[in-house]
């Protein structure tokens, strides 16, 4: 596709439920990143995928968070047993492998936990 696509654009759910967020990167981009942006804050790194290498999970805030990526395409971020502090915009970005090109972002999923 022309850009990074994320779905859903908005998600409202009750505390304790599981949610799944989806990201379709730009075609040909082997690197894929998930970030979280809380209200009024900068972007926090969550997890990074590069090709078939093991993902860098160093930014995941707890074991309730996990992510998968199928090859070099779609990724899903799963949050289990959601808490109110999980409310944020979840942004996905992708880039070419060599790191010499900028990351391009999707529009994000705005997650609200009631």
């Amino acid at each position, binding site marked *: 596709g022309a850009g*990074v696509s994320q779905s859903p654009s908005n998600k409202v759910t009750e505390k304790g439920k599981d949610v799944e967020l989806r990201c379709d990167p730009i075609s040909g981009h082997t*690197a894929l*990143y998930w*970030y979280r942006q809380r209200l009024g*804050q*900068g*972007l*926090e*790194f969550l997890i*990074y995928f*590069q090709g078939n290498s093991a993902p*860098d999970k160093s*930014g995941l805030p707890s074991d309730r968070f996990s992510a998968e990526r199928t090859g070099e395409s779609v990724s899903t971020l799963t949050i289990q047993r959601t808490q109110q502090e999980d409310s944020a915009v979840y*942004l996905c*970005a992708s*880039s070419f*492998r*060599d*790191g*010499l*090109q*900028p*990351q*391009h*972002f*999707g*529009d*994000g999923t705005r997650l609200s936990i009631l």
Partner: protein
Amino acid sequence: EDKVVQSPLSLVVHEGDTVTLNCSYEVTNFRSLLWYKQEKKAPTFLFMLTSSGIEKKSGRLSSILDKKELFSILNITATQTGDSAIYLCAVSSGNTPLVFGKGTRLSVIA
């Protein structure tokens, strides 16, 4: 720990003014510094800087990097209301996650 600090945190100007946004950083294995503009949704890419002293320009926006003093500035001349946004600075150590500053919220008043 890698760190990016942006200033000011917020700024209100009138249309036609010139603004300068600041970004300082501490990072191991610096590769590049990036500026993004964030309006309501996705941060959109503005500039990627890798070399000191070389100005990058796009219309009324320009940016320059000083790798000795570890900072960058983003200039916007003849500001317009459409320039109102959060401007994000980030640094990269290569093919790794970006480290972002908290952003500068710019409001341009007609």
